């Protein structure tokens, strides 16, 4: 094991109007060290003005999302010894920059606000009876730690942000749609206002998910299909029309 590792970190303070650039640092190596260790070493000992956001350092909170060697990842979960000699750390490019490695992710809460909230069936007697099998269907989506790496990697979000809610929020909608006691169908919202049609299933989002949620396979495709079944299936459309007529 080497004693020291070189790491390049993106620095930019938008207030100064200066161009962003990478600055090289050398950091002493410890066994089992992760990228966040190196970055906090710098921010605590070398340059206290380096802006970095982190909380739990246990891959549970999703605060320290960044682009490590051009790949969206959690800094706390990326081991230095697996990266080789050239380590480059940059902020997520899909969100407005606050400073250095910190971005403003608050727009995600605005999107969440638009997704119809959990709406349980009325008149249910509490406590509820739910089968574990039904819990399992929604469980995967509920492990999302809101790191927003899936948003960062999504080329649709990067290039047409306003048109598509993005993978995180499809997961959110799916977690509610598949809640055993929920009564709504959010696929209509996702496919109209949510712009889910823009997603062309490149599966990048599920590749970077630190919780290994199968975002595309289990949420995006399901929500797309549900919308097709409900609103575009010619037979279903015909049946709907007929049943309306007979009423």
């Amino acid at each position, binding site marked *: 094991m080497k004693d020291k590792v070189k790491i390049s970190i993106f620095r930019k*303070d938008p*207030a100064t109007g200066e161009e962003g650039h990478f600055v090289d640092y050398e950091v002493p190596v*410890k*066994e*089992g*060290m*992760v990228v966040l*260790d190196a970055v906090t070493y710098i*921010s*605590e*000992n070398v340059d*206290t*003005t*380096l*802006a*970095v*956001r*982190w*909380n*739990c*350092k*246990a*891959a*549970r*909170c*999703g*605060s320290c999302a960044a682009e490590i060697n051009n790949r969206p990842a959690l800094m706390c*979960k990326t081991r230095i010894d697996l990266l080789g000699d050239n380590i480059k750390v940059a902020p997520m490019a899909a969100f407005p920059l*606050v*400073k*250095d490695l*910190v971005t*403003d*992710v*608050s727009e995600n*809460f605005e999107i*969440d*606000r638009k997704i119809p*909230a*959990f709406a*349980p069936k009325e008149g249910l007697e*509490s*406590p*509820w*009876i*739910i*089968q*574990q099998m039904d*819990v399992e269907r*929604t*469980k995967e989506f*509920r*492990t*999302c*730690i*809101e790191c927003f790496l899936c948003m960062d990697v999504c080329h649709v979000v990067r290039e047409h942000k306003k048109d598509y809610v993005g993978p995180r929020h499809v997961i959110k909608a799916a977690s*509610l749609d598949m*809640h*055993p006691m929920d009564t709504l169908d959010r696929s209509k919202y996702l496919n109209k206002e949510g712009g889910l049609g823009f997603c062309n299933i490149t599966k990048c989002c599920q590749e970077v998910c630190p919780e290994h949620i199968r975002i595309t396979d289990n949420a995006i495709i399901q929500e797309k299909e549900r919308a097709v079944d409900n609103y575009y299936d010619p037979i279903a459309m015909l049946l709907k029309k007929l049943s309306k007529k007979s009423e």
Partner: protein
Amino acid sequence: MEDYSVVESDILIIGAGGAGMRAALAALSNSSSVVMVTKSVLGKAHTVMAEGGIAASVGNVDSKDNWQVHFSDTMVEGVYLSNWRMAEILAKEAPERVFELERFGAVFDRTKEGKIMQRAFGGHTYRRLCHVGDKTGLEIIRTLEDQIIHKNVKVMDEIYITKLFKSNGSFSGAIGLSMRDGKFYLFKAKALIISTGGAGRVYKITSNSWESTGDGLGLAYRIGVELQDMEMIQFHPTGMVYPPGVAGLLVTEGVRGEGGILTNTKGERFMLRYSPEKKELDARDVVARSIYYEIQAGRGTEHGGVYLDISHKGAAFIKSKLPGMYMQFKEFAGVDITKEKMEVGPTVHYQMGGIRVDAETGATNISGVFSAGEVASGLHGANRLGGNSLADILVFGKRTGEAASAYVKSAKIKAPSEAEVKQAIKEVKSFISPNKKNAKNPNLLIEQLRENMSSHVGIIRNEQDLQKALSLIEDIKSQLKDVGVSGTLVYNKGLLACLELGNMLIASEAIVRSAIMRKESRGAHTRSDYPKKSKEWLKNIICKIGSDGNMSLSTIPLKEMPEELKKLVKPEVYE
């Protein structure tokens, strides 16, 4: 140009973890306007780290369970120091808070009958912890966050409150720095709820996240709020010990709850010696001390831990019941816990002490100031039972939100004077001093403080070490005026470290002074020079700022338990 913007509401809540969010919902449904500020991004609070479950005697798995047993477990394992009224409220109200959380949308694991699943945990007589795999805290945060987002709570995240104000003896406002834009905000409110969590980060080896720097303790203390039982620091028996980068990271008690076994390097299941009946599932203070003794006796691993093994349960079981642990060990340590043993050792996990509050309402001794969650104290006595903190934040979060709402109905909005606000802003700016000669890096002092606390105020304490710790704290305190950083007010972590250091010093001083005062061993507080429990010490130690600005300590005897509750708890035994 104005130096700051004003934000007004009935209630200001500092801290957006489980307690703060539950309080916000309660305040809203009692038609108060609410502003909630947090120093992290919304949804990142330390509550997400809670793993094992929430203790509520719903009796789905063991039908004999009821609130009386939960009450008794809490009192006995808290070594009779708990506020009995808080323990009673918790035991009675926890089940309804769990069912309510389910109605808010939380999805718990289920029994075969489709009821909420419960698991065994240390110190609980019955299988009592309602859970979602080993990610119960995340489920709670996400569920409450959903509620908050769709309701009319003004959430302002990444704001660090630097000072509270008081006029004529009651709360009058707070000033905070917004990290994202470097602007100051003056919060005017009729009531304040402090729900800022613990102070675990004053220790070097801790399971606590970056946030837990005792901010609420420091803020409250400086306006005269009383702190109590600060010596009671919980060491969780099982934290990761290797690799060094993740030392202290929590290994959920759920591992032992689901059948995990502790062994030393000789292969002995040593808990059979220390606790033949409850073994691995004795209370946390007992298991943590046992592991400590094993390591001291030279039966620990090369990384200073012992072994924890769950592999006999099989891969499918482990991956479904403990998915977070499986991933944590695989990705951080390269250990496959379905096949290999884990290496674990004690880690600072929770503060039982904190702001002294009224059991019914969460009110403090300062009018208009309320508190709930880990930063508040009373419920857990000398040792907290696993799962009781998640119950705590919901039960007392709700009660505190309601009480604060009732209070604001007859309270008037006050405000600090312009001069006070300007002075508070000046104090913050004074830490940014590029020209200050020999300005000290706050992070180096923080590191010294954390080293000091871990080596002198650990699981086993003594007068000499505690005095050493105290003089080091005094020394760091005297250097606080010399700390400084460069940069601006925008996302300056160095500046934040300067501000946090002040709060960390108050928390540490209170811990150490209280630990020196309590001359007995009770629960989490073990003194090698006073190894026995003493009836004389059945009292709370109070820390309060004196008129000279120094910390003053006093004691208050516990209130006598009413007869009907006494009947439920086996009497305390002294040697």
